[in-house]
């Protein structure tokens, strides 16, 4: 299980975006996360992906408490959690071809023996043709690029997957295709998924459980602005 307990995180001192957040993502299930813009969904995704250190609280992966974040986190813990970003164009190195984008995590882990087989398998699974694999990001559409990004996140077979508004910029058919691939991962490999989305209807159909992040009211007047913590409201 991927879990966060009492997470407090933010960007400016004194104004936390997340304030005492608890969340659990069991293996083999999809947990939906909904909430308005600015309530801390992406911050939570970064914290759970070990890319941002929380100010307080604890993240644990399969019972092992995480002690370091970003490069300070052990490689095994980092690669146990895959991350798919909202904007695929920002999430890929513009100089890389799609093949290299998908292969990069395998290269980084030195698994060169399974490189070509795994990339071909993922590309086929996600509907990325051989011709597309040789193109660079500016030569493909957002949908095609997001397919490559999901393939990259799945390349090293993560035990958990964090999808941060993965389908926000995509058409219905691409959304359906990506969700189907993620569902197969959940079913076949027992991957635990945190699906973040604005689209409540999508989450209702996709997730086994939906958590709603609600920002507390912002005080105005003489009082110091206060961003209250989200209230998990499980459905």
């Amino acid at each position, binding site marked *: 299980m991927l879990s966060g307990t009492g997470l407090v995180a933010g960007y400016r001192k004194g104004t936390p975006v997340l304030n005492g957040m608890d969340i659990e993502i069991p293996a083999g299930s999809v947990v939906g996360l909904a909430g308005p813009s600015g309530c801390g969904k992406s911050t939570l995704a*970064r914290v759970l*992906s*070990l*890319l941002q250190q929380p100010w307080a609280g604890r993240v644990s992966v399969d019972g092992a408490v995480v002690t370091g974040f*970003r*490069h300070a986190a052990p*490689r095994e813990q*980092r*690669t146990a*959690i*895959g*991350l798919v*970003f909202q*904007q695929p164009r*920002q*999430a*890929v*190195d513009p*100089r890389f071809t799609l093949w290299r984008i998908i292969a*990069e*995590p395998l290269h*980084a*882990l030195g698994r060169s023996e399974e490189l070509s087989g795994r990339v071909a398998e993922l590309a086929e699974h996600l509907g990325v043709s051989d011709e597309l694999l040789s193109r660079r990001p500016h030569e493909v559409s957002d949908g095609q690029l997001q397919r490559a*990004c999901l393939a*990259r*996140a799945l*390349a*090293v077979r993560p035990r958990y997957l964090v999808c941060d508004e993965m389908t926000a910029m995509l058409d219905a058919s691409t959304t359906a295709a990506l969700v189907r691939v993620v569902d197969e991962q959940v079913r076949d490999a027992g991957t635990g998924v945190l699906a973040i989305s604005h689209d409540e209807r999508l989450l209702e159909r996709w997730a086994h459980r939906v958590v709603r992040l609600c920002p507390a009211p912002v005080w105005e007047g003489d009082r110091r602005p206060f961003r209250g913590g989200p209230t998990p409201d499980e459905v």
Partner: protein
Amino acid sequence: MGDVRESVPESTAWESGSGQWRSAARKRAGTPRGGGREVRARIRLWGSLGTLVALVLAALLVPALAGNEGGVHYEAIRLPPSPEHPFGTDTAGRDVFVRALAGLRVSLLVAAVSALVSTVLGAAVGTIAGALGGWTDRLLMRVVDTVNAVPHLLLGIVIVALYRGSVVAVVLSIALTHWTAVARIVRSEVLSLRQRPYIDAAISGGATRWRVLHRHLLPAIVPQAALSAVLLIPHAVWHETALSFLGLGLPPHMASIGNILGDGREAVLLGAWWIILFPSALLVVTTLAVSGIAASWRDGVVPRRRSELAL
């Protein structure tokens, strides 16, 4: 359907206040209409390239072909420009044309090596500071501030004075005083790149610090660093000239523009103006040619400049 610009005269539509639009051909007040700017930019690029290629070829070929023409001839001291000696002769009877081109070759070589060394050094410091951040960044940036706080020529003179008459000393005196600008540019570029989601994706995919650095960050800063190196060349030419003019630069037997100007300054008092004028003009033309190429490159690399040009 008629052309809108034809039906409403451009000058009256905006200035009289009757229309709420202005012609698409004139996007910003004060910018010239039409493609004049692009044409000028293209002329600058090709003119600069042609001039530099011609100068480099001349600097390589003329001294080699001239043989002893550039040597000492006591019977031909301080001859004014003539068809035989287009730039005249100097106080030792040497042909100024051949000597100036030989000097240009040395000056350009020293400048190019200095620019390369300082760019590599600056890029390394900037990348390490930007990529590691924290105390490493603060410490390295204070070193940059310290080097910047001392006048470059003064620091260069100190370095040259320690190892006088050596080409390596001149190269080091220029390189060790000019890497700071490159370091600052590269550091800011790396700091900006570090925040990009694709770096997060690489970290999440198990990439080490070194891998992020050499697979993602270093290739991204190469255009900026190369541009800095080219922009540094004209500056380094002048720096070398200044050191040689002060008698602290290259050894006297090695012709450089600075040496020629240093030797020729007394001759000006005797009326031999050509010894100073022609090598100086050659230096100015070379500098403008390299700067022209660098400026065209910068317009292509830096989007803000490119968009300004498009207006």
